[in-house]
C-alpha cells in the first residue's frame, strides 16, 4: 500500500501524462524514434526524484511506440519502425474513408497490448528472463530466419519478386561495418555510412515519399466520398472479431520482446502474418482488414513492456529505448539487474505504476487528439502532399542533423516508386532491411563459435525448434498462397 501512495503521489501522475503526450508527439513525427524522444528529455530528469524520472521516461516510451501508428494509418508514413506493419491495412482503411475506425482499432488494440505486456512484465519477469538467457547466436539466427519467412505471404502473388526485394533489403543492411571483422562495406569512405543505413529512413522513403510521388500525378480525391471525420472506437461486435488477432499479437509480442534485439517491428509483421493465417476472413488482409491493424498494434505495444524484462532482470537493454531507460537509471545511481529488486523495490514498483498510468494516459490523450488529427488529414490534397513532405524532410533531418539522411530517404522514395512500377512488393524489402543485420551477424558469429561447422544450427536446441517452425510455417504459407492457384 505504501508503494501505491508513493507511486501516485507527488509528480508521478503529471509526469506520466506529460511524458505520454510528448512521446505520442515525438513518435508521430516521422524519423523521431522513441529512443530519440526519450533522449531529448533525459537532461531534464537530472534534478528529479528517481521514481518521477523513471516514470517520465517510461511514459515517453509508451506514448512514442503508440504515436507511430497515427501517421502510419493516416498518411502511410510509419512514425516509428514498429508501426510499419500497421501501414498495410491501416492506410488501406484510410483510403476507403475509414480512417477514424482504423485509429480507434489501433488505440484500443494498443491499450490491450500495453496492459497485457505490463501484466506479463510484473508477473513473469523471472521465468521470461530465463528464456532470454537461453538464446545463443545460433538461436538468434534462426529467430531472424523465422521473421524473414513471413515474406512468403507478403509477396503479393509473386514469390520471385518477393525474394528479390528481400535480398535487396538484406544487401542494404550490409552497408556499414562488417559485424564480425569490422571491415567497412559499401561505405565508399563516407563516415556517414560507417554506422549503416537506419531502417526508418528506408521505411519513410519507401512508404511515404514514394506514395507522394504517386499521388502528385493522380487526380484530386473526389468530394463525394464518404470519409470518417471523427475517431470511431470499435463496437462490441467488432471487438469480438478482433479478439483473435489481438490475442495472436499479444502472444507473439511477448516472445519477441523478451529476446533482446528482435524488436517491435518483427513482432508486428509476424503478428500480422499469423493473424492472417488464423483469420476467418483472410482474404481481407491487404485490403483494409481491421484485424490487420489490430494484430500488429497489439503486438508492438506488448513489446514495449516485455522489452523491459531483460533490462530489469539482467541489466541488459534489448532495444535502443531500453538503453535510454538504462541511462536514466544509471544517472540516478540505480543499477538495473538482479539486485534492483532487492536494493530499490520502490523504484521498480514506481516503474510498474508509471507504465500503467502511461497506458491510461495514452487512451485518454488518444481520445482527445485523434479527431483533430483526422481533420488535418482531410484537407485538400495539394496542401496535404506539401505538408507531409515538409514534415518528412524536417523530421528526418532532425535525427542526426544530417542532410545525408534526407538524401537516403529521397533515394528510397525513388526506389519505391520504381518498384511499384515493376510490380515488386516493398514489404519484403523492409523486412530484409530490418532483419538483415541480425541474420548475417548471428550466422557468422555462429560459424566462428563452431569453428566453421554448419551443423551447429541444428545442434542447438532452440535454434532447431525455431528453424523447424520457420520451415513449417513457410511451407504452409506457400501452399496457401500459391498451391491453390494452380
Amino acid at each position: 500500500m505504501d508503494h501505491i501512495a508513493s507511486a501516485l503521489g507527488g509528480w508521478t501522475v503529471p509526469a506520466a501524462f506529460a511524458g505520454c503526450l510528448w512521446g505520442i508527439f515525438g513518435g508521430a513525427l516521422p524519423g523521431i524514434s522513441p529512443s530519440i524522444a526519450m533522449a531529448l528529455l533525459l537532461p531534464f530528469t537530472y534534478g528529479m526524484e528517481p521514481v518521477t524520472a523513471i516514470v517520465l521516461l517510461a511514459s515517453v516510451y509508451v506514448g512514442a511506440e503508440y504515436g507511430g501508428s497515427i501517421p502510419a494509418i493516416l498518411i502511410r508514413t510509419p512514425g516509428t519502425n514498429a508501426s510499419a506493419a500497421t501501414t498495410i491495412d491501416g492506410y488501406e482503411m484510410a483510403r476507403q474513408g475509414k480512417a477514424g475506425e482504423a485509429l480507434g482499432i489501433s488505440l484500443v488494440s494498443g491499450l490491450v497490448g500495453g496492459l497485457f505486456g505490463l501484466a506479463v512484465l510484473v508477473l513473469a519477469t523471472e521465468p521470461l528472463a530465463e528464456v532470454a538467457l537461453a538464446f545463443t547466436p545460433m538461436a538468434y539466427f534462426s529467430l531472424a530466419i523465422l521473421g524473414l519467412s513471413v515474406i512468403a505471404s507478403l509477396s503479393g502473388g509473386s514469390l520471385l519478386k518477393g525474394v528479390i526485394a528481400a535480398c535487396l533489403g538484406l544487401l542494404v543492411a550490409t552497408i556499414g561495418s562488417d559485424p564480425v571483422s569490422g571491415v567497412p562495406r559499401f561505405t565508399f569512405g563516407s563516415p556517414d555510412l560507417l554506422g549503416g543505413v537506419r531502417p526508418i529512413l528506408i521505411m519513410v522513403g519507401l512508404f511515404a515519399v514514394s506514395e507522394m510521388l504517386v499521388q502528385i500525378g493522380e487526380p484530386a480525391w473526389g468530394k463525394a466520398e464518404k470519409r470518417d471525420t471523427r475517431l470511431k472506437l470499435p463496437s462490441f461486435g467488432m471487438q469480438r472479431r478482433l479478439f483473435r488477432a489481438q490475442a495472436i499479437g499479444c502472444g507473439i509480442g511477448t516472445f519477441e520482446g523478451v529476446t533482446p534485439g528482435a524488436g517491435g517491428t518483427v513482432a508486428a509483421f509476424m503478428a500480422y502474418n499469423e493473424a492472417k493465417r488464423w483469420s476467418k476472413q483472410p482474404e481481407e488482409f491487404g485490403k483494409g482488414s481491421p484485424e490487420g491493424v489490430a494484430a500488429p498494434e497489439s503486438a508492438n505495444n506488448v513489446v514495449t513492456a516485455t522489452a523491459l524484462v531483460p533490462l530489469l532482470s539482467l541489466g541488459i537493454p534489448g532495444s535502443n529505448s531500453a538503453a535510454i531507460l538504462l541511462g536514466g537509471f544509471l544517472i540516478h545511481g540505480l543499477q538495473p539487474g538482479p539486485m534492483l529488486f532487492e536494493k530499490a523495490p520502490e523504484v521498480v514498483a514506481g516503474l510498474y505504476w508509471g507504465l500503467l498510468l502511461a497506458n491510461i494516459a495514452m487512451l485518454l490523450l488518444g481520445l482527445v487528439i485523434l479527431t483533430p488529427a483526422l481533420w488535418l488529414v482531410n484537407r485538400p490534397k495539394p496542401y496535404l502532399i506539401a505538408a507531409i513532405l515538409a514534415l518528412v524532410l524536417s523530421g528526418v533531418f532532425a535525427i542526426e542533423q544530417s542532410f545525408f539522411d534526407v538524401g537516403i530517404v529521397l533515394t528510397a522514395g525513388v526506389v519505391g516508386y520504381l518498384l511499384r512500377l515493376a510490380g515488386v512488393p516493398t514489404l519484403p524489402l523492409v523486412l530484409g532491411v530490418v532483419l538483415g543485420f541480425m541474420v548475417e551477424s548471428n550466422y557468422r558469429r555462429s560459424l566462428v563459435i563452431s569453428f566453421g561447422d554448419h551443423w551447429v544450427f541444428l545442434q542447438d536446441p532452440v535454434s532447431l525448434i525455431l528453424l523447424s517452425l520457420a520451415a513449417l510455417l513457410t511451407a504452409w504459407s506457400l501452399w496457401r498462397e500459391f498451391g491453390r492457384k494452380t
Partner: protein
Amino acid sequence: MSDAVGAGGVPMALAAVMAGAGALLVLRSLLRAPPAGESRSIAAHAKAAGLLAMMIAYVLAAPMLGYPLAIGLFAAAVAAYGGARLGWRVAAFGAGVAAFGWLGFVKLLGVAFPVGTIFGG
C-alpha cells in the same frame, strides 16, 4: 582473424540469389505475359519527377536560405504544383509550415537546423 565466410560472403551470396531470381523472372516474362505492375502515363511520371526535383532543390537550398525560409518556399511550391490555386492561401500555407517547423523543430526540440548563409549562419 575473420571467419570462412568473410566480409564479402553474404553480399555475394545475396547478389547470386538476386541474379538467379531475376533470370527466372526474365525467362517467365519471355514465355508469357507477366502480371503487370501499376501502369501510368508519361504525364504522371513527369509530375513525379518534378516533385522529386523540388525535394532535391530544398536539400540544396536549405543551407543557404536557412531552414524556415526553405521549408516554407518548398511547401508553397509543392502545394501550387499539386494544383492549389495561386493566391494568398498558398502563401499563408507556406508561411504556416515555416512557422510550425521552426517552432516545433528548432525551438521545441532544439534541433540545430541551418540558419542560412544569407542570414549569416
